[in-house]
């Protein structure tokens, strides 16, 4: 027996390669085992990577099944059937790479020679900004990609303004009271899910950190928390404001922090602007001398946070007082009517939170004495993804501002996206002692222009992220928006917009039909690849090079992806694909110039790419490694990464000495500037613009979703879990094997009382309708669902593709969601991601979903209850 060859995969003869996971956008460290025969047979977490400590989530554990997926594209393909649509066979014909590049470059060039804006890109690999930003090479700023908007359209800009960072996470090493609002962070999703759940579990169990989850449903986070607070969807801002109300009323705030480290004491005039002197210096009020002084006056005795004052004959208030005024209407008793959270609960949570924050306490870390605020209000997609996203994010920040925990041990920390090089701090000083706000974390936006230069109106969102859903709004009303160009070619890479973007599919399909030419680079068939004229198949993550660092919550440092095997098929790296296209389109120089900027090479001139050359994925990766720590690719190839825990000087209060934006005056400025621009350019839709969305302080305004017609009597929400990377991983047999056995992913979920009130039972087939669209599904019940809510897992979201492993779910939640301006935050472009729905019971599945054709048949098969065994 002992002389036998090992039968467990990790022990078979072979070698281990250190690399980086890419089964979601994040970058946990991995180790890949390759047998002597060159077969990848085990992937584990890399224990030397302090981010994920050797752990992988189920997606990371399932990468092999994507690599060997027989549905993968194995060579370039050309469509021979001109007819397009779901269920219509494109009749692919294999073509050579040369032909594919020539054909694609010719078609793309044809359009951009006429007008660069005629190209619509959807390119969104978070691990490769060098590809993502390719359209900038010819000055194109359109976007048809969803990344960042549905989830973080308002989140990232507000983080940029408050922390000068992309994301946020509570400081897990010191936090003792962790509020999770509408996010799976630490339990099922968001930042490095495998890593974060490891850190959070240690904090929970080893240190006794208390968790409270605010959610319409009993998510994993809620289930593992000490307390779940069910909330009506799209009302989280009201809850946050009522927490602030309690803390203000009871004096539970960190006043020292607010006075010294924020602009809360800056005086604001009735017009919403700070009160300035002729040199643009801002006034504060000295409550001892009872007079206005400039903010940096060394003679200030006590800086006022509250009160009404008069400066130069104008009435004004400290910004903090303006917030207190708003909070007057936000008592827990008042917000309960909106949120359904009992007022007593809100009072208690606010007190517990403030108490846990130990206001006044300090901690010594590496020679610095820092405030210790071990309580943080953490939040993400579910909580922030609403019409008034900017105000909503701001409200969540305010809960943290109240206790002075911003970027402070134990509190809410800014998490950078991709630091690029070791020595740089992401923080810069701005005007009047304040930190420079950096809302544009993904790069600069196109300036105001009318007619618009972008097809999704990005010219009008002053601190926006690309709102891809507005492509549909514009497509249907081009004249109204004065759009004087018609996009007719699409370049799609690493993106599945026909799955990801909200708005009804049948309208999106019209949009797709209006395209003259669509090229897609992906690895497997999806809803979107069905529309391609040319497929340019790329390597997968086990066959290619890359260097990345994507939003690691507690660590920093570049992570290398290196090939574990030769490419299985006739595929290419995205780098090669975009270089070849660029060369043939005559935009190579522009492309290299873009990469030099977005990859940060310009900061180390010796790393700059020569403009007329093409580079491999390995070479780009090598230079990113050098940029980070001057180590060459061999150093990385051996170690896999340069990850260390975040250095405390950059992690904790990197803005020391600057003031944070409690009051976001830019909102007033941007509004007025945009208004003036629109007036001047006589923009026809300026009166439809939601000017009230621009608020320097968050208010208790209701999101319009609450005002849908009464017949839509339930809220529809969607969610993912740790096994799912959006809907994409549902083609993976290992993921399917676990997802469709999990009760929360196999039905449209209602609270049992709600189901009864609607005359529905488990397993009833229903049609779900919103004012925008519909889907079909099967009902399940759970006590862990807010009675106002219908929960739809992303596991029930796929529609027709040519991937044999993907089952039709009966429709897609995104069809139900709005795509109009009314439901879009006029500040950031953040769309509403919940909707109102009504349910109708059906006797049977509609045609097309009958007879074993829907995902529910797969569910039944896997779950099979009938006895009578295998033989």
């Amino acid at each position, binding site marked *: 027996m002992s002389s036998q060859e090992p039968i467990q995969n990790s022990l078979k003869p072979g070698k281990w390669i250190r690399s980086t996971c890419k089964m979601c956008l994040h970058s946990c460290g991995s180790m890949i085992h390759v047998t002597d025969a060159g077969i*990848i047979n085990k992937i584990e977490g890399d224990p030397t990577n302090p981010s994920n400590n050797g752990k*992988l989530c189920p997606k990371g554990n399932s990468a092999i*099944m994507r690599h060997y997926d027989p549905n993968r594209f194995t060579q370039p393909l050309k469509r021979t059937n001109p007819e397009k649509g779901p269920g219509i066979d494109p009749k692919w014909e294999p073509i050579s790479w040369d032909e594919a590049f020539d054909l694609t470059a010719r078609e793309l060039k044809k359009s951009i020679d006429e007008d660069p804006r005629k190209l619509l890109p959807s390119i969104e690999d978070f691990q490769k900004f060098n590809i993502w930003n390719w359209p900038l090479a010819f000055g194109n700023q359109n976007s048809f990609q969803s990344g960042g908007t549905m989830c973080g359209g308002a989140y990232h800009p507000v983080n940029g303004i408050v922390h000068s960072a992309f994301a946020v996470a509570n400081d897990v090493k010191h936090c003792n009271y962790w509020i999770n609002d509408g996010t799976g962070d630490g339990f099922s999703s968001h930042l490095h899910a*495998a*890593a974060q759940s*490891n850190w959070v579990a240690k904090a929970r*169990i080893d240190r006794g950190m208390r968790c409270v989850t605010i959610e319409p449903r009993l998510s994993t986070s809620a*289930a593992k928390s000490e307390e779940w607070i069910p909330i009506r969807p799209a009302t989280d801002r009201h809850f946050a404001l009522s927490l602030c109300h309690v803390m203000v009323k009871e004096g539970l705030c960190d006043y020292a922090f607010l006075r010294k480290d924020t602009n809360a004491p800056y005086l604001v005039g009735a017009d919403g602007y700070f009160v300035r002197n002729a040199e643009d210096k801002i006034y504060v009020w000295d409550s001892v001398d009872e007079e206005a002084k400039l903010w940096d006056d060394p003679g200030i005795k006590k800086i006022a946070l509250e009160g009404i004052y008069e400066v130069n004959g104008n009435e004004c208030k400290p910004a903090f007082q303006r917030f207190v005024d708003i909070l007057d209407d936000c008592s827990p008793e008042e917000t309960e009517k909106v949120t359904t959270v009992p007022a007593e609960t809100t009072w208690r949570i606010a007190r517990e939170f403030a108490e846990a924050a130990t206001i006044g306490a300090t901690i010594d870390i590496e020679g610095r004495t820092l405030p210790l605020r071990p309580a943080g209000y953490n939040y993400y997609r579910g909580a922030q993804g609403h019409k008034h996203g900017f105000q909503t994010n701001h409200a969540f920040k305010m809960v943290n501002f109240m206790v002075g925990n911003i970027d402070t041990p134990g509190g809410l920390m800014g998490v950078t996206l991709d630091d690029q090089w070791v020595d740089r701090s992401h923080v810069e000083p701005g005007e009047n002692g304040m930190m420079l706000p950096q809302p544009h974390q993904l790069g600069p936006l196109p300036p105001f222009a009318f007619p618009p230069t972008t097809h999704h109106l990005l010219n009008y969102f002053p601190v926006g992220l690309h709102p891809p859903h507005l492509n549909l709004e514009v497509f249907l009303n081009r004249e109204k928006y004065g759009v004087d160009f018609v996009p007719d070619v699409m370049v799609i890479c690493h993106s599945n917009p026909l799955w990801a973007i909200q708005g009804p599919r049948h309208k999106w399909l019209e949009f797709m039909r209006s395209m003259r030419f669509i090229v897609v680079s992906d690895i497997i068939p999806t809803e979107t690849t069905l529309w391609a004229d040319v497929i340019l198949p790329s390597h997968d993550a086990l066959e290619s090079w890359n260097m990345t660092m994507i939003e690691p919550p507690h660590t920093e440092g570049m992570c290398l992806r290196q090939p574990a095997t030769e490419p299985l098929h006739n595929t290419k790296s995205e780098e090669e694909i975009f270089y070849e296209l660029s060369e043939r389109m005559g935009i190579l120089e522009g492309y290299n110039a873009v990469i030099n900027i977005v990859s940060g090479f310009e900061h180390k001139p010796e790393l700059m790419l020569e403009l007329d050359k093409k580079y491999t994925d390995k070479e780009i990766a090598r230079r990113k490694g050098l940029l980070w720590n001057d180590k060459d690719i061999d150093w990385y190839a051996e170690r896999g990464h340069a990850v260390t825990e975040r250095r405390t000087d950059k992690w904790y209060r990197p803005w020391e000495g600057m003031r944070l934006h409690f009051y976001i005056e830019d909102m007033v400025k941007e509004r007025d500037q945009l208004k003036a621009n629109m007036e001047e350019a006589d923009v026809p839709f300026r009166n439809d613009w939601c000017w009230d969305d621009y608020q320097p302080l968050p208010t208790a305004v209701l999101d319009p979703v609450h005002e849908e017609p009464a017949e839509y009597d339930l809220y529809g929400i969607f969610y993912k879990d740790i096994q799912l990377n959006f809907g994409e991983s549902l083609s993976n047999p290992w993921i399917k094997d676990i997802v469709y056995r999990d009760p929360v992913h196999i039905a449209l979920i209602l609270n049992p009382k709600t189901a009864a009130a609607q005359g529905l039972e488990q397993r009833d087939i229903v049609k779900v309708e919103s004012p925008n669209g519909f889907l079909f599904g099967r009902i399940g019940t759970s006590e*862990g669902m807010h009675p106002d809510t219908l929960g739809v897992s992303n596991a029930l979201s796929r529609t027709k593709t040519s991937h*044999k492993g993907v089952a039709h779910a009966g429709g897609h939640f995104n069809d139900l969601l709005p795509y109009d301006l009314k439901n879009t935050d006029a500040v950031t472009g953040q769309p509403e991601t919940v909707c109102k729905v009504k349910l109708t019971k059906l006797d049977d599945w509609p045609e097309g979903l009958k007879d074993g054709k829907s995902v529910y048949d797969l569910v039944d098969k896997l779950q099979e209850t009938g006895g009578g065994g295998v033989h």
Partner: protein
Amino acid sequence: MVFDLRRCIGCNACVVACKQENSLPDGVFFTRTLSQEYGVFPNVNRVYIPTLCNHCEDAPCQKVCPSGATYTRDDGIVMVDGEKCIGCNSCAVACPYDQRSVMTKESFEDGLYADGNLTPFEEQGYTRFTPGTVTKCDFCSERVDAGLDPACVATCPTDARIFGDLDDPQSKARQLIDERGGKPPLPEKNTKPKVFYVS
């Protein structure tokens, strides 16, 4: 093995890690993490319960095995010798925990993509199994012999699976059981499991 129910987030990374490590066909699990909701809105919660073979000291699966294929190693790991197993499934109906897996011929033929072809991963992995036999978790005995943690333990994001020698008072597993009152699953079945749950 000890399962810390406060840690487990029901992610099933363990399940997929086990499938990778042991080349398991579709629908076959040596470990499963189950969930159970309890209570009534709003006082409701869900608990995630990892399960695998308990390597019972009085293993009913071994008792009923007519071929002698199921046996217990000196270190207490209950093993199945695929060469000896005849696929009578007696062990499967005898295991109170439903932890035996039938390795049907079809699953080896259909493959993970159910298209009648095997991926290279499957081709290199399935040779360890004899189609038609019944098998189960062996605590990753080869990894354990090599001084490694079982695959499911190594990957568990929350460290909810603690592997160790229960007879060693110094082991973390033993200490957890003692400190937090570890309970075996279905003690009324008198199997003397070597897996305990702490909550």
